[in-house]
């Protein structure tokens, strides 16, 4: 049979037209790493428009200002400092630059405010015979108020843990849930815990993501719903304690909990951090973290710079001198304890 000539032509055309898919690459030089970082943020960071409204962030102006500081012979540590300072312009605790010798960060969202938490004083309340369920430590205070401390949502908690813990605390008059200094972790842990405090499904927040490289290229926000747990659910008043170091997944947890009728948020404003961070890297191997997927409140209000409590309380030096935690004491009174 005669070979169809077109077969050969088609195969040749197809094989020669397969072009490589690559991105614009930057050289591993101070200038190349600077350009790579600026462009990465420009294309993938999710809060440019919001932060322009809040404090006039202009990322192009940031480029001009920092590009002049880059020289071809600058040492690695000098470059790290300049790039770290450039990222700090974003005022975002989820934005970091990681080298072997340091982590560039912006932590003013809690460093510039009262700590409102003292680990030594917490021991006065937890004692030494507290119980542990997953990531939670819990005890019953002498006025029959339950005290639960969840220090990090990076520590897991299972539905079995939660049911047994709430069953143990069922006879208490109220529950203090302390998420101060909880810098976040797994959203799924936070949502599993929140599901124990609502009897109906609630759309607590909205989440979206970038769909392209433009500053306003976002998907339609979709509801994040907290569905009531099938296990034991808490039906009594709750005081949720927060401070400036309640950040990231904890900020999301506070946003959900504040919408449940039996919950009162007491303490200081949360630190915020409502953008789920993604990771990337520079040509020289330094890792980069940045906010990628923004979360909004139930009325589409930004949560990036934190959530105000229902009752604003600071720890006082007088109480601290007496070994008391002012915020816990206010919560106890609120729940009908002391």
């Amino acid at each position: 049979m005669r070979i169809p000539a077109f077969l050969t032509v088609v195969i040749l055309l197809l094989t020669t037209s397969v072009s490589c898919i690559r991105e614009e690459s930057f050289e591993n030089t101070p200038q190349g790493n600077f350009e790579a970082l600026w462009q990465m943020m420009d294309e993938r960071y999710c809060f440019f428009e919001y932060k322009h409204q809040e404090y006039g962030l202009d990322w192009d102006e940031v480029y001009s200002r920092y590009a002049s500081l880059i020289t071809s012979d600058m040492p690695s540590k000098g470059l790290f400092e300049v790039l770290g300072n450039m990222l700090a312009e974003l005022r975002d605790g989820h934005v970091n630059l990681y080298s072997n010798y340091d982590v560039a960060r912006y932590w003013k969202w809690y460093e510039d405010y009262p700590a409102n938490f003292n680990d030594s004083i917490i021991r006065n309340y937890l004692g030494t015979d507290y119980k542990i369920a997953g990531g939670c430590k819990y005890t019953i205070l002498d006025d029959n108020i339950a005290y639960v401390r969840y220090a990090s949502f990076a520590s897991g908690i299972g539905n079995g843990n939660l049911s047994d813990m709430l069953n143990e605390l069922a006879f208490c008059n109220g529950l203090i849930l302390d998420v101060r200094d909880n810098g976040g972790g797994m959203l799924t842990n936070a949502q599993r815990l929140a599901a124990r405090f609502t009897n109906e499904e609630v759309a607590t927040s909205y989440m979206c993501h970038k769909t392209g490289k433009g500053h306003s290229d976002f998907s339609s926000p979709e509801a994040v719903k907290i569905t009531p747990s099938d296990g034991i659910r808490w039906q009594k008043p709750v005081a949720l304690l927060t401070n400036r170091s309640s950040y990231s997944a904890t900020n999301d947890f506070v946003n959900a909990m504040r919408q449940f009728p039996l919950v009162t948020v007491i303490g200081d404003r949360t630190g915020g951090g409502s953008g789920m961070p993604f990771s990337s890297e520079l040509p020289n191997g330094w890792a980069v973290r940045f906010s990628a997927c923004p979360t909004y409140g139930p009325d589409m209000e930004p949560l990036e710079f934190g959530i105000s409590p229902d009752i604003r309380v600071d720890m006082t030096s007088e109480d601290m001198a007496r070994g008391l935690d002012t915020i816990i004491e206010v919560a106890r009174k609120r729940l009908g304890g002391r």
Partner: protein
Amino acid sequence: MNRRITLFLCVLCAMFHLSAQTVGEDVARPIVRSTMYGVGSINLYDTYLSPVEYSGTQVRVLRESIRMTRWMEGHVSRQTLFQGYLAAAENVAGTSSELAGMVNWNYALHYNWYLADKRLCLSAGPMMQAHGGFTYNTRNGNNPAQARLYANLAASGMAQYHLPWKCCPLTFRYQVDLPFLGVMFSPQYGQSYYEIFSLGHSDGTVVFTSFHRQPTLRHWFTADLQFRRFTLRLGYMADMQQARVNALRSHDYSHTFMIGLVHNLASF
């Protein structure tokens, strides 16, 4: 988009239906099966994980079966190809690594033209491909991995040349497979897997692909050395998988040198 995906699935079903047809004639039909093992280099790139390319080593296994059918006066052969690889790669700076794995199943029907006193055989036909795998970046946080799931219709071409040397008969083969239509899973540009799987926000994660979005090529060369009781197969494969979907870019370039054994059977 849904109509295109439905059309694509219909074409796949038609290929299956065709393969299920048989003609009842008692003529011996050769079956060639081989299993090859290989090692080679790989270059991984996925802008969902990193803007930097990762280079490393991969090990691969390839299982192939070619069976002559009775269709179209015995000119049609059926090829099934299964391959899988595992790879480990590092960025240029050596500060981060990626692990990758992929299994790939292919089913092709080739029409064969015999030339030069049947020493040369040229083949061409459609191929169906299904791929499943992952790339895992060991350093990333909320975007640690990328799932690779896609299916394609491809054009497949093959050339075989047989040298009937008495001492050691040789058969050379070159095959090229070019996908031109398919569906692929991909998160959106900045979408997290938490949104897709924990919240169920999966709109736009299954996309239609064609040559401009997935300019992919796999070609390979084998040499069969027939000794008295067995046939040794040596091979080289260049597998150039790449895609440009949802504003994300990825590629997976591998070069593999393989060795294995061939079993020649006959079916009635």
